[in-house]
């Protein structure tokens, strides 16, 4: 899961704000559609500015226009932006051998930002580098022949990837068919970097890539800057016509911990763009004042939900789980999230292929009480888990109060967001009864929701993500079957069916899809900004009015 970064609201905005007010905005004078320097802000530094390592929305947004993998996601909004298109490869891969062999060809003449030519073997190096660094993305690529062993030993090479630097041919052999592999080839984790890139975190000096911009300076804790990639205009842009060249000359990203300060500085024109939405307290004010002119809400492919541990009483009883689904009211949670989620009652969120809206459990306390009466659970002592980040902690308090109203003796356990998922992902943690969780897509493929979150075979003692510990054999088999097929209209229908079948089992009580936003200064062209479902704000689409 790509995590939504921890939003830390610090009391003081510290030096970054001062630095900003000092440098001002060289572009605020405006001047045409092309050029200018964008002053932007993040609340926290991305986990990594290293393509093989970053696994957050912050990092992916920051690197979308700096590194291009063999395949990439179209620089477009909505469903169109979920389309996988050729990146550094000439065309989409030729899939043969029953779905186990992927053949690609690198475009000729590509150069990294430092002028070095891009070689086919750089792809293999990038994959190996990712495994050597124990990247969070490793699990997407362990189906490559020899990758599992390489990941464990970090010795030798991955025999399943054959490359030819002179012809640019890349052949990838998988141990079994993998229907999501095109999506995974389009992730940052396997974006080629020069062969001499050190096998350690390069956040402080990001390696050169292929893209319209390059990171000219990175100071963790302070910010980072982009300039136009000198090679882009010379060679690469002609070779990669599908990738836009961008309008801005420079982008400076500052770290400003106080989100309220960020909002103020947008209003004053000191900042042009901020990554995080306005803080909860000011969200509505900003929305009312600037919607349509400087503010736009943007959808994400995500689901917020309460999970129920099906392996233990009382939630091993289907009726109890269904009762909870009837009791949880997405409308109440929409308010708790200040309107920053859109209510839903199913696993797949809008925007995900295979999404078909349905509502199995329209809110009804009477129905919930009736089901509970029938089930009459003997174990009424429940621990409710949530993390301490607002408003997830409030969602947890709402859920606990709801369970109390239903006659349970519920106790709330609030854990620091840094280790929340580690704790609830450890199946030996005592009293894992029920609690809050969310899931943001890694890539727009429905398997990314079902396989890690519901497949009984995916239950593991630590780092477990199947929080309800649901293990329905016939449904597991369906997930496994679909995982090997390429996604088409028939598969999408089957995923929609799977969504319903799981919700009939009610291991989750889903309640919403997160919306994020873009808030820009008055001299930025809001309408032109592209929001890619996977990479979010596309820097190459931002321009001054």
């Amino acid at each position, binding site marked *: 899961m790509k995590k939504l970064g921890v939003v830390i609201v610090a009391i003081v905005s510290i030096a970054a704000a001062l630095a900003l007010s000092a440098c001002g905005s060289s572009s605020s004078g405006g001047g045409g559609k092309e050029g200018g320097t964008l002053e932007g802000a993040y609340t926290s530094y991305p986990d990594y500015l290293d393509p093989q390592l970053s696994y957050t929305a912050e990092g992916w947004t920051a690197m979308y226009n700096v590194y291009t993998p063999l395949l990439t996601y179209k620089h477009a909004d909505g469903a169109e932006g979920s389309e996988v298109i050729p990146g550094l490869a000439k065309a989409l891969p030729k899939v043969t051998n029953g779905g186990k062999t992927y053949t690609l060809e690198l475009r000729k003449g590509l150069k990294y930002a430092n002028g070095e030519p891009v070689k086919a073997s750089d792809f293999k190096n990038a994959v190996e580098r990712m495994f050597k660094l124990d990247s969070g993305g490793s699990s997407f690529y362990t189906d490559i022949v020899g990758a599992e062993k390489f990941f464990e030993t970090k010795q030798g090479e991955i025999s399943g990837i054959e490359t030819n630097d002179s012809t640019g041919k890349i052949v990838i052999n998988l141990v079994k068919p993998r229907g999501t592999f095109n999506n995974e080839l389009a992730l940052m984790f396997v974006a080629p970097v020069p062969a001499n890139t050190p096998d350690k975190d390069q956040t402080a000096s990001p390696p050169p890539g292929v893209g319209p911009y390059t990171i000219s300076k990175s100071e963790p804790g302070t910010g980072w800057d982009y300039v136009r990639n000198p090679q882009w205009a010379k060679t690469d842009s002609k070779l990669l016509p599908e990738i836009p060249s961008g309008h801005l000359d420079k982008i400076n990203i500052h770290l400003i911990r106080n989100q*309220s300060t960020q909002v103020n500085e947008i209003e004053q024109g000191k900042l042009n763009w901020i990554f995080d939405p306005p*803080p*909860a*307290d*000011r*969200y*509505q*004010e900003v929305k009312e004042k600037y919607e349509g002119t400087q503010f736009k809400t943007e959808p994400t492919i995500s689901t917020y939900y309460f999970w129920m541990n099906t392996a233990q009483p009382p939630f091993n009883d289907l009726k109890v789980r269904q009762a909870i689904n009837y009791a949880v*009211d997405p*409308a*109440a949670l*929409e*308010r*708790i*999230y*200040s*309107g920053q989620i859109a209510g839903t009652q199913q696993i797949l969120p809008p925007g995900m292929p295979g999404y078909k809206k349905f509502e199995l459990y329209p809110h009804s306390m009477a129905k919930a009480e009736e089901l509970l009466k029938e089930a009459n659970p003997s174990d009424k002592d429940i621990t409710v888990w949530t993390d*301490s980040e*607002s*408003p997830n*902690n*409030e969602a947890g*308090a*709402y859920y*606990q*109060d*709801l369970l*109390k109203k239903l006659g349970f003796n519920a*106790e*709330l*356990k*609030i*854990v*620091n967001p840094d280790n929340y998922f580690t*704790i609830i992902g450890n199946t030996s943690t005592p009293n894992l009864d029920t609690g809050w969780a969310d899931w943001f897509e890694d890539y727009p493929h429905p398997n990314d929701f079902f396989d890690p979150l519901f497949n009984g075979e995916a239950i593991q003692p630590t780092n477990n993500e199947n929080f309800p510990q649901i293990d329905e054999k016939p449904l597991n088999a369906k997930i496994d079957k679909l995982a090997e097929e390429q996604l088409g209209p028939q598969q999408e229908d089957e995923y929609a069916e799977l969504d319903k079948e799981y919700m009939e089992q009610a291991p989750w009580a889903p309640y919403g899809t997160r919306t994020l936003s873009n808030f820009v200064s008055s001299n930025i062209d809001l309408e032109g900004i592209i929001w890619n479902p996977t990479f979010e704000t596309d820097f190459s689409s931002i321009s001054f009015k």
Partner: protein
Amino acid sequence: MAFEPPAAGLPGPGPDEGFPPAEAGAPAGESPWRIAYRRLLRNRIALAFLGLFFLIVVFVLAAPIWATHVAHTGPNTTHTLEKISVNGETKEVVEPSGRPIGPVWLGAGGKFFFGADGRLGRDEMVRLMYGGRTSLLIGFSSALITIVFAIVLGLLAGYYKGATDSVIARAMDVLWAIPVLLLAIALGTALAVGGLRIGPIHVAGNSLLIPILIIGFVSIPYIARPIRGEVLSLREKEFVEAAVAQGASARRIMFVELLPNLWSTIIVFFTITIANNMLIESALSFLGAGVRPPNSSWGSMISEGSDLIYSAPLLSILPGAMVLLTVLSLNVFGDGLRDALDPRAKVRLEVTAAQAGPEGAAI
């Protein structure tokens, strides 16, 4: 005299032990406690603040009554989607934007007197009352723990001196060296998930006992050291020598001879420790290492309110004001108590101030 147990029911020293000293001209035979009491009665400000403190205590003790009979809701009951009628007008407890209703005073029959607490729509008044119970309970209980340990350690260190003193005093120094809030945050965070396990005793992570124990523990050196200092000087007094000559055991000397002479100090420290510990509790809960949600304390309410500081500032101001008033009343009363029990301290202060005054003016 020293052989006799203290007078029944009187926790203080015998009159001839001379501490607190009898005022010149006081009627013969009047106990120093009585004299102190008369002095306290003359201090109107201290009494007024004591009255304020009692009002606050009554306010928080009335929480269940207000909750059941007036507000008809509990401190953790959510009302996110509910509508209430305020003076005949229907209003939403939480607007769709997540903004809570402000104070409606008695417009809804006592419901939401101070409005709702945020997106969950809990009754702010009820939470304020219950939160106060938590804050005062933690302040009082942890102060008790602090005082008991400080007395025992202070007596042991001051009376035995030597190696015992070195060990205890250095241990206290180590504790003292660590900023109290940092230590409390570290302990609070560490104990939050798993709770505390000492042998067969297990305290759950969200139990109130955790902040009580932590706060009680981290404050010990701040009281133990002054007590040790006082014991060090008291143990050289003649009545201790007399007790030793008569063959009294060390335990007897510590607890029967020395302890009664410390009571005036201890009582003053106790009131101030309650106030200090309440402040630590507020800070801890504000930082998320104290009282665990959904339970409220004034500190955690300030923290929750800070989320809405622009749109509903009252949510932080109310609990903040309550902490301020409680701590202020305890401190002012504590000062008055000290003046009453040990007027020499005040005299000393006034003399110093008088000496410093003209010099300060000259500069």
